[in-house]
């Protein structure tokens, strides 16, 4: 049975896990995330979808970061699934051990490792690459809020160029995070030729759920990279998380695609491509790009990235697939 919101107008098959009256609620309410936290929303959707797709046979290891801290401070625990936290940089390796142990015991428990962009693209990169390269039977989910939020919004290698963070403060000399820096981990994952890589956004929950549900039942290493706006770190009203997420997708800054065994196999086209400026203007972390003395070239640099994404992943023109 579906609920009485918009979900009820869709066929049962098309209902999202979230719209269902008995959604698993793997990350229950009452945790300590900020209001409007994109990461909390994405984690609930992703893990609910994985739970749904495996009849609850999942176990999670979480890297240190906001998600870990806000969901689990002794003696409270917001998780309704087996969950552990070890360290900041080792979640993929812990997951390898969990998967090996499940295999050794003949248990069909699907293993998920998850962390923020810092835990994934920076300190966990070595263990992540190792887990990919061995094709371990693990789904890794990166919740990308594009900075070290838990320690107070410092730059990570996933921070967009020109963004303001506590360690890339714009001033008369610097315009935020250095142009020409950064790391694209979905592409690095693809280069490992693992069975499945996908990007997802909390602006498109159904797509996110489908990707996670697909990934969790594939044998071998899987990577899902989710764009999760953070009202505190990005500087926008807590009610606008989905709006900001959608704007990132609609301008091409965050392309939605899937890849299998080293090849991009599909992408989600943008019906009506918007200029990057619309996305940037929603957030205080880019506000300096629109001040009186700002260099107009800066916005252009970001537009170049979005346009390159649109071309690379064939996002324009409303035509699906590559």
């Amino acid at each position, binding site marked *: 049975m579906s609920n009485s919101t918009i979900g009820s107008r869709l066929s049962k098959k098309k209902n999202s896990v979230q719209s269902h009256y008995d959604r698993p609620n793997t990350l229950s309410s009452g945790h300590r995330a900020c209001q409007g936290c994109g990461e909390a929303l994405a984690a609930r959707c992703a893990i609910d979808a994985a739970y749904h797709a495996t009849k609850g046979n999942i176990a999670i290891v979480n890297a240190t970061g906001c998600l*870990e801290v806000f969901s689990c401070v*002794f003696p409270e625990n917001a998780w309704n*699934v*087996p969950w552990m936290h070890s360290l900041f940089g*080792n979640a993929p*390796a812990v997951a390898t051990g969990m998967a090996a142990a499940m*295999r050794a015991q003949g248990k069909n428990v699907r293993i998920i490792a998850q962390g923020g962009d810092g835990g994934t693209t920076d300190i966990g990169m070595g*263990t992540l690459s190792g887990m990919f390269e061995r094709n371990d039977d693990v789904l890794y989910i990166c919740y990308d809020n594009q900075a070290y939020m838990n320690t107070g919004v410092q730059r990570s290698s996933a921070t967009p160029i020109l963004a303001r963070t506590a360690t890339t403060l714009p001033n008369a000399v610097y315009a935020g995070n250095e142009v020409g820096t950064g790391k694209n981990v979905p592409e690095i994952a693809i280069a490992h030729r693992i069975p499945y890589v996908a990007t997802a956004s909390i602006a498109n929950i159904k797509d996110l759920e489908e990707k996670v549900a697909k990934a969790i039942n594939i044998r071998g290493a899987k990577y899902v990279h989710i764009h999760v706006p953070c009202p505190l770190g990005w500087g926008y009203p807590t009610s606008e998380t989905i709006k900001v997420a959608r704007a990132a997708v609609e301008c091409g800054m965050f392309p939605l695609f899937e890849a299998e065994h080293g090849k991009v196999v599909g992408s989600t086209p943008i019906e009506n491509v918007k200029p990057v400026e619309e996305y940037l203007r929603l957030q205080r972390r880019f506000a300096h790009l629109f001040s009186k003395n700002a260099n107009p070239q800066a916005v252009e640099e970001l537009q170049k990235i979005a346009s390159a994404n649109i071309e690379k992943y064939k996002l324009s023109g409303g035509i699906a697939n590559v």
Partner: protein
Amino acid sequence: MLFQLEGSQAVARAVALCRPKTVCAYPITPQTHIVEGLGELVRSGKLTDCEYINVESEMAALSVAIGSETAGVRSYTATSSQGLLYMMEAVYNASGMELPIVMTLGNRAIGAPINIWNDHTDAMSVRDAGWIMLFAETNQEAVDLHIQAFKIAEKVKCPVMVCVDGFILTHAYERVDLPTQEEVDDFLPPYDPHISLDPKNPKAIGTMVPPGYFMEVRCLAHKKQIDALNVVECVGNKFKEKFGRDSGGLVREYNLEKAETVIVTMGSVAGTIKDTIDELNQKGGKYGVLSIVSYRPFPAEAIRKALKKAKKVIVLEKAFAVGIGGILFQEISLALKNTKTEVKSVVAGLGGRAITSDMIKEYLNHKNHDDMVFLGLNKEVIERECRLLDKGSCDCKSSF
């Protein structure tokens, strides 16, 4: 059954007899042959139901063990020196989470300057990490302590590190008695995990613990270690009952009944010291040896008891803390506080420097031990370098 084996192969086969379900380690001299040995045992089908995982770093190696142990299976890893430092965060994590992982530490110096040879600096760098730490004197003890280690770890719910001197033991061919699979199975029952990640009974493990609880957690970890003194002793006794070898326990006493001077030490060097004092005792000397088997938990009471009759105690150790001095020395001194026993510190064998019988004799015959804190030192080099120090005003008379 008796075998002529390299120490590392003997350890590998002892670990295999304990039926770990995951083995994961990263190459580093002098530990490498142990995991190579286990890899071969898994690949050749001699160790079954075991996942052998090649990883990209020591951080990953111990993290895999953390994951697999949390998911409910007996897990093993091994490392040395730089590798131990590289996994340091996970070392504290494993004990904090009460995971009964067993790890072999093939003891090696720590750089810079890089040095692959034996001393105990690596082990000393994790002495406060909450692991149980056992030191082997011979390859036979290394074998026996690994079998005991799994039992102790699982009983105490605490990881155990078995320290085996790099090269001196890991690469030495010696006769060892390996128990049969049936005997080990009988001694070490299948692992019954105290925690596990079970979808039917979901639990959160490794959560953040705020100030309101943290002190208690730490205090209980300490209490648990102190209780483990009994477990280490008891498992050692059980092992002796079953296998006839007294290779566990807290301390190993040698000729303490008649000794006036006792050398306290850890690991393989005890063998050289015993040979030396045998010679001296034949000529009327009154020497004894006390080896610390269980370095953590620290058996202060057993040490006090063993050294009750000693007039002088010489702590000979293969590590020291720069800026203060001998580490074991400080701990033994603490254990003997309020007694009249004189305690001397001697640091020896750093970075693989040989410790010979002659050196030990020279030390014992030397009138002023405080003159010889570093055994076998090239004093010319030290004095020359000291002269070159700041304005040549170094007063290096006292400690060298």
